[in-house]
């Protein structure tokens, strides 16, 4: 009975969540997942755009409010600024976590630029061309031609550093996963069922698709 009432309440109150609050949830999740996944995740361009737009408006708003001497307005200002700083931290940390991955696996993402934003792509190209120019003037040019490549894949071993797709990640299941996930154990392969609310340590490669669908979140 209690459960029924909760269901009804939930269905009634759900549509009233403003878009801005959902965006905060999405942004928070984007940040946490980017901080915990071994690989770059898709860039949520619409979300970042909307948030940046709101940040700009809020900064204007705060600038208009400064100058009043009213103590009540001053306190409101403190609240606005605190929240603004929290948002700025989220976005900054999110972008910096992405840049760290781009720097680390530059050659890999040069070949697969799908999940980069236009700005990140620009950064990656500029940065890697600067680096390779520097390498070739300082030492690469004195090497034999066949040893000058930075992305050599001959001989069975690739020079390109790739994110380790099998890294263990902590995740929470948000929607039941219908197909059991294969887990490679020490002596046997097991199928595990992932149910809503479960917390697991699994390989990134096993959950990547579900994370991008939003059925599983990284924590």
């Amino acid at each position, binding site marked *: 009975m209690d459960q029924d009432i909760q269901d009804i309440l939930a269905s009634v109150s759900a549509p009233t969540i403003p878009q*801005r609050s959902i965006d905060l949830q999405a942004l928070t999740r984007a940040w946490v997942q980017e901080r915990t996944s071994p690989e770059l995740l898709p860039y*949520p361009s619409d979300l970042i755009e909307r948030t940046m737009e709101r940040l700009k408006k809020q900064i204007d708003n705060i600038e208009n409010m400064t100058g009043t001497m009213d103590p009540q307005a001053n306190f409101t200002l403190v609240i606005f600024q605190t929240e603004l700083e929290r948002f700025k931290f989220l976005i900054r940390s999110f972008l910096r976590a992405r840049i760290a991955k781009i720097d680390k696996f530059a050659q890999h993402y040069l070949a697969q630029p799908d999940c980069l934003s236009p700005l990140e792509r620009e950064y990656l190209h500029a940065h890697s061309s600067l680096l390779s120019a520097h390498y070739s003037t300082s030492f690469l040019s004195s090497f034999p031609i066949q040893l000058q490549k930075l992305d050599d894949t001959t001989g069975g071993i690739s020079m390109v550093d790739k994110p380790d797709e099998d890294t263990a990640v902590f995740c929470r299941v948000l929607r039941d996963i219908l197909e059991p996930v294969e887990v490679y154990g020490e002596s046997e392969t097991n199928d595990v069922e992932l149910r809503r609310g479960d917390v697991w340590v699994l390989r990134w490669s096993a959950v990547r698709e579900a994370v991008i669908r939003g059925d599983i979140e990284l924590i």
Partner: protein
Amino acid sequence: MALPLAPGLTPSEVAFLCEMELVTVIPRQRLPSLELLAGPTARVEPPFPTPLPLWFALLLKRQRRANISPPPWLSVESLTAILDFETDDRTAGVFTPASPLPTSTTEPYMDRDPYLDSKSLESSPPFIIDSSTARAPGDALPYHWLELSHLLLTHAADDFVDADTVRRLVRDLREVRMSKLRKGFGVLDAGAGVKMNGVGAMEIAEVRGFVGGVVDGLRKLNKSREESRRERELEERESGMGRGGYPDDDDDDMQL
């Protein structure tokens, strides 16, 4: 520019997340609804308890504009009951179950929906409604229990009936659960399939480096064995298929 931190949230980042939890505030002063970036806040009118994000509540508390009423699970009775459960021999292998996620209200993911689309975004801690407000359940610890108790006990100790006992119980609980977590590492396996229901955010932050390192290290050690087994399983599956009436037409497929 690039973030110099290893993957995984640091304890201060976990606390930052926890500050987005809603808590119940008992105001002493009136405050109109504010148009924040995260949506309008509730109007604050004494003496009505109002749910507000923790960071906001702490700001009000510091300026003595409000009191924070601790969630029901952060009371002496609830913590004692939870501690009993945690120390019971019969439940030595599991944590206190977290309260279930509320009924899902979002649409399932559709193909070609963008990543983190708002239609299919399922809410999760710290945005679960009523996980740390005065209406929270008293018999389960929420995901951010340790950070939340720490923040409340540090900044709003005078709002507790018996802050010292609560503090002691929280510390006991933390130690019991940590030792459980460490014992659980016995089952760590190269397969990286460990279920940890009921674990808290700060506990994950504490063990992430260790668990991740062990699981990844074991996987690398067992890599060759795992690959040969995977091949063998694949072969078995294929030969099984072959007997089932599909004579090996794989090569033909390749040519088409």
